[in-house]
């Protein structure tokens, strides 16, 4: 019962080179906690001092922006893909 988190190239140095990490399915905040428990350096990059997602980090569950879903409470089911991307692109 795992979800898959896709890691952008620039952060793969912090996941031992892995482009995808399997974590237990569940609410998104728990998915991210599982991820950052395994790779603490990654947590520092994704989350600010208060533990919130940084302003310029976008997270997608099954290709949908979590701001159109339930934010960090979005349910991530088994087999679903969570994508982390830099926000400052396009236009």
């Amino acid at each position, binding site marked *: 019962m795992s979800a898959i988190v896709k890691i952008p190239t620039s952060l793969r140095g912090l996941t031992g080179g892995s482009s995808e990490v399997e974590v237990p399915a569940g609410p998104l905040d728990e998915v991210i906690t599982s991820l950052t428990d395994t790779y603490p350096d990654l947590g520092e*990059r994704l989350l600010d001092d208060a533990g919130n997602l940084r302003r*310029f*980090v*976008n997270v997608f569950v099954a290709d949908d922006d979590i*701001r159109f879903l339930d934010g960090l409470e979005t349910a991530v089911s088994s087999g679903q893909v969570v*994508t982390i991307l830099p*926000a*400052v*692109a396009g*236009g």
Partner: protein
Amino acid sequence: MTFATSLKCRECARTYEPGPLYFCEWCFGPLEVAYDYDRIAEVVSRESIEKGPPSLWRYSDLLPVSRSATVDLGAGLTPLIKADRLADELGLTDLWIKNDTLNPTNSFKDRPVTVALSKAVEFGFETVACASTGNLANSVAAHAAHAGLDSYVFVPHDIEPAKIVAAAVLGNVVEVEGNYDDVNRLCVELHDTYEWGFANINLRPYYAEGSKTIAFETAEQLGWRLPDHVIVPVASGALLTKVKKGFDELVQVDLVPEDRQVRISGAQAEGCSPVAVAFENGSEDIRPQKPDTIAKSLAIGDPADGYYALRAVRKSGGAVAAVTDEETIDAIRLLARTEGIFTEPAGGVTIATLVKLAAQGIVDPSERVVAYVTGHGLKTPEVVNAQALARVPANVAGFQEVLGEKE
């Protein structure tokens, strides 16, 4: 040569060697080109610029590319028109239109693209790409063809047909099943796999610098004076943010005599107004939207630079307003019939916003105002229901029968 020194994170100020990078690996903040302004101030002058080419490359000292290494179709130095008839309609006294429909591919996007693709060549990319609502696709495909590069330009599947044609005759268009924000996400993911130069992703810090030149030209064409107030359409917010940077740089390197803030106001469509909503709410938090507007070139629901555009507007004492599709079409006609300029809906949104802000007194009648009209109406002919007045036989009697005899 260029006076660009590094890429610098706007959030945490970490610096990076110039390269195809766009976000800070530490905090995900956007990277921006940093310059040695002291050296620029030593070499640049009004005279040195005026002796330069009749394009935006006359400002190369303030761009991150050497003038001798450009991919150049002649972008920039578009007309600045005194708009007295439109001013009369709106109760203004000193109104100007920057007609950026007259760029090589008929939109302001040629400004950022000539810079981005010059860097693509410098970095050795053989293929370039972009996520676009249409105008950028056209411009990237054109500049790529001129430079002998392959291009893949990604657009939402439902943009205006003329924009698909204009890009498809020049390069490879990929229609994506989704809105612009979906296209953008796809391209960010593709950029991780394909070693392409994406104009508005890994080349974005350079790309965005090109938009400063519309501010440089505005001041030069006003006789090296700053305007009081400019009206700028807001999609990603990058243009507005760079307009502010452009005016600030002119002050910094002493090209204009005044040291003051130009008021900058933003224009959005009601059907895609995340920055206007945040402005109205007094918030710094830009909530993304699902766009629904005829102004497809402004239909970015998750604006990358929305946060910075909002800050630039507030710092300058401007406003952000949103207008309906109906107001947009009325404004397209108003601009056409008063000033002879035919714009696509993005320009209609800008003029409609000017109408609104003038009526509210936010644009003051005594101000010198410049409105940026950024894309040509022939790209979107279907939005205005404009038809011939009459069809007549090819003789005078036939004409008079339809339209009446001369009195």
